[in-house]
């Protein structure tokens, strides 16, 4: 009630509407075979949301299995080095399985069990989502198939082996350029053929309604914890939030609880690849794409004038996707969130800087957010409280980074 005088008529937190739209974006653009299941899923999720038992079970798993809450850590040396804003990391890389992906997977597997589905499928890019899905499938004894592009299988080999150890079947996808988009196509094809018993755990805030809202809700634990933790640490809200954007689930999880706090400046960092000049050399769909329809929703997409999807490029497999969650597209157009892009090279430099200064090896995905923090923090006053979502750890990227730095490692 305290800020009721300054609250405007519109809230940024009420979407989507009953058609699954965030303004122009979102929706349910799927084949008829899937449509009945999408509606069933929406109903099941609404029921689950209203069931205290569901929340209690999920909270129990988040606490004792995933290890939440993740710490809010004051990055003292990085703050000193950059000489501006006071930088905090939200340590979601410390979660079980090494990224924020487990938050969503625990929510969705609970839903799958409620719906009595007996088989789990998923797509993965960097393999972080795949590992998280394989983990919860193992935990609940359900067979699991993960689709992964062959390019990604090569550059994320440690995660492929982890998934296999966890009992998942990893199916290489050779179509297209063999990255996340192609893996998602193949997962959708599997789902169409196996709707009767299969639950598709989508890893990001994209896909047909209700996925974007559902995944956001499961990830919002990140931002909610930050609110409490920052209150404890500094006695007030943060001033600045920064997170990387592929599909945008870690970012939406951090941002959503703060959308109506006008004092909080919010930055989403897209993968600028080799630069924004050529649409085939980056994955910054909101900085270099235009609205279109893919994978069940309308959103910003990298595409040519004929509406064919462009593969894009990023050093980070987790950001290598030509679209973005529809709610981000809406937040971009409304101007509530500022979306910027960072190049492969800048991300690689930030990866090394963070490792040396903080003793934390970040994944290449949050290294993009870090690279923007490097640019932004020095322009902000010292009492500006900045939170960056450290959404994944970099162990999986060590071999790939060695390659980019020209270091040969024996395997």
């Amino acid at each position, binding site marked *: 009630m305290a800020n009721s005088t300054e609250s405007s008529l519109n809230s940024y937190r009420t979407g989507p509407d009953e*058609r699954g739209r965030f303004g122009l974006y979102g*929706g*349910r*653009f*799927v*084949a*008829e*075979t*899937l*449509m*009945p*299941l999408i509606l069933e899923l929406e109903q099941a999720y609404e029921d689950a949301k209203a069931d205290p038992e569901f929340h209690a079970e999920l909270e129990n798993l988040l606490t004792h299995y995933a290890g939440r809450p993740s710490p809010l850590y004051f990055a003292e040396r990085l703050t000193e080095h950059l000489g501006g804003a006071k930088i905090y990391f939200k340590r979601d890389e410390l979660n079980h399985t090494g990224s924020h992906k487990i938050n969503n997977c625990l929510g969705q597997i609970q839903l799958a069990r409620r719906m009595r589905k007996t088989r789990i499928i998923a797509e993965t890019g960097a393999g972080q989502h795949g590992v998280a899905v394989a983990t919860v499938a193992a935990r609940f004894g359900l067979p699991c198939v993960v689709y992964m592009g062959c390019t990604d299988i090569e550059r994320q080999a440690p995660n492929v082996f982890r998934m296999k150890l966890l009992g998942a079947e990893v199916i290489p996808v050779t*179509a*297209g350029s063999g990255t996340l*988009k192609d893996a998602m*196509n193949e997962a*959708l*094809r599997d789902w*169409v*053929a*196996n*709707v*009767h018993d299969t639950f598709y755990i989508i890893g990001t805030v994209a896909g047909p309604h209700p996925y974007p809202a559902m995944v956001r809700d499961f990830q919002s634990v990140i931002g909610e914890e930050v609110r409490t933790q920052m209150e404890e640490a500094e006695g007030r809200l943060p001033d600045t939030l920064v997170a990387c954007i592929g599909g945008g689930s870690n970012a939406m999880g951090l941002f959503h609880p703060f959308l109506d706090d006008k004092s909080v400046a919010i930055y989403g960092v897209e993968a600028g690849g080799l630069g924004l000049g050529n649409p085939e050399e980056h994955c910054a769909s909101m900085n270099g794409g*235009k609205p*279109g*329809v*893919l*994978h*069940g929703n*309308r959103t910003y*997409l990298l*595409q040519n*004038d*004929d*509406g*064919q*999807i462009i593969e894009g490029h990023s050093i980070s497999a987790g950001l290598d996707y030509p679209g973005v969650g529809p709610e981000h597209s809406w937040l971009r157009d409304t101007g509530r969130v500022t979306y910027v892009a960072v190049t492969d090279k800048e991300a690689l430099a930030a990866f090394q800087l963070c490792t040396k200064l903080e003793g934390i090896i970040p994944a290449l995905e949050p290294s993009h957010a870090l690279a923007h923090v490097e640019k932004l923090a020095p322009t902000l006053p010292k009492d500006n409280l900045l939170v960056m979502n450290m959404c994944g750890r970099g162990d999986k990227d060590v071999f790939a980074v060695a390659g980019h730095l020209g270091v040969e490692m024996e395997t």
Partner: protein
Amino acid sequence: MTTRIDKRFAALKAEGRAGLVTFTTAGDPDYDTSLQLLKALPRAGADVIEMGMPFSDPMADGPAIQASSQRALKAGQTMKKTLAMVREFRAGDQDTPLVLMGYYNPIYVYPVDAFIKDCVEAGVDGLIVVDVPPEEDDELCIPALAAGLNFIRLATPTTDAKRLPAVLRNTSGFVYYVSIAGITGTKAPDASEVHAQVARIKGQTDLPVAVGFGVKTPEQARTIADGADGVVVGSALVEIIRDNLDGDGKGAGGTTEKVAGLVERLAAALREPQSAAVK
């Protein structure tokens, strides 16, 4: 308004047989071969022509049609060229219904209003757009119907009794029954199951029902045709194109003749009287 599709299905009904609906992708393997093939299809016995609008991410299609989309795009096919192909076809054929099938994004960016206008001008009769369900009818279905195009909806094994009326509501021309839960050209449909489902749909609508996804041989077509008004064959035709490429991935000589050969056998099978086995 009576469309070419309505007239054709009325004529088929009078003849007492199911029609042959052929699917090929526009521009596969290249513009010239694809146009030549398009012109040959009615002569070979195709009653309704379905032409795919190639898309980079055909999520409802199996490997055969995915590859055909890729070949067409690689050869430079665009939506504008697809509509030009329809115009060239229509100049020589005023009777054979032609339906464009594909995915929403290339239409959305065209954009929708201009696409519908250009379809009408080129002589397109209907649209099948896989990823625009009834829930999104105002996007494309309603404006297409208003412009006089048929909007053909897919009904699937998962379309239950509760949902069928919503699927049928804004459907026109014919209903496309997807005979398997799955993607094109993969599993073989179970004939008795298909017959039951087609009967169920026909109990709810006066529209003709055509059956597709997984029908490959003349024998299959004949069996599936019983009780239906049309049978769609796509992957089997597209696989012939795949098997007749030259070293540069262009159509080698004889592609049209070989595809037309299978179309002739399919058409002949649909003209056979109902088999005693099925009765």
